């Protein structure tokens, strides 16, 4: 579920308010949505926010840094 994944904002912008999740083994968008939103069915929000790096919501890779809107 990416419990150790960084949750902090990153980047050089001191006001960057983006939350990120780094994908770990066993993660799915459903599980990530469950972790951050409490409801796995809201995974499309994460998918849409990461369309630049995700082509398929069922295909995420370990190490990918996902924006959590």
């Amino acid at each position, binding site marked *: 579920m990416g419990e150790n994944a960084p949750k902090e904002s990153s980047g050089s912008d001191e006001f960057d*308010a983006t939350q990120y999740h780094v994908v770990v083994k066993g993660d799915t968008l459903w599980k990530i949505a469950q972790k951050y939103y*409490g409801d796995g069915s809201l995974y499309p929000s994460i998918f849409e926010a990461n369309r630049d790096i995700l082509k398929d919501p069922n295909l995420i890779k370990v190490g990918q840094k996902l924006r959590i809107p």
Partner: protein
Amino acid sequence: MKRNLVRSCILLLVSIVLVSACARGKGPAEIAIKGAEEAITTLKAEAVKYIPDEVRSLEGALAAAKDKFAKGDYKAATSEAQAIVDKAKGLVEVAKSKKEELAKTWGTLSAGVPKMLAAVQSRVDILSKSKKLPANVTAEKLAEAKSGLAAAKDEWGKALESSTAGNAADAVSRANAVKGKAAKAMELLGLPVPAGAQ
């Protein structure tokens, strides 16, 4: 009789000398006070928005100098009025640097704070659709974050109005308040608070 006449003449002479000595100081004092008034007027035009306390203090000093003038203490009135002119000149530079500092701060806040508001709005919208909230967010926290966001957006509108009206100090003050409200809402929602808002 003759002695009295001599005494009266001496008294009259002394009085004339004293009055003329005093009158000699009145003119320069008037000029100095006028100069101080002009210096404050020039300073106020720009500086009152940025250093209102210092301007008020200078106005107080001018009132004190005028008071001394009214009481006939022309020497003190002149000296104080001249000091006001010098101080006013220095404050013009202080106001200028304060203006630049506020413009820079506003630039940073006006670029950064909307990002925080957008992040909070996005999370509030998503969590409002959630059937079950995440472990670190209770219904009370979400409700508090929503009301905090509404207040922050309202305050942000006022900050923008102040900036448009040229009131940089008020705009920055309001923007800092919005930053605090947004940071609080982010904490309630379990969002990371950006470094610039900590």
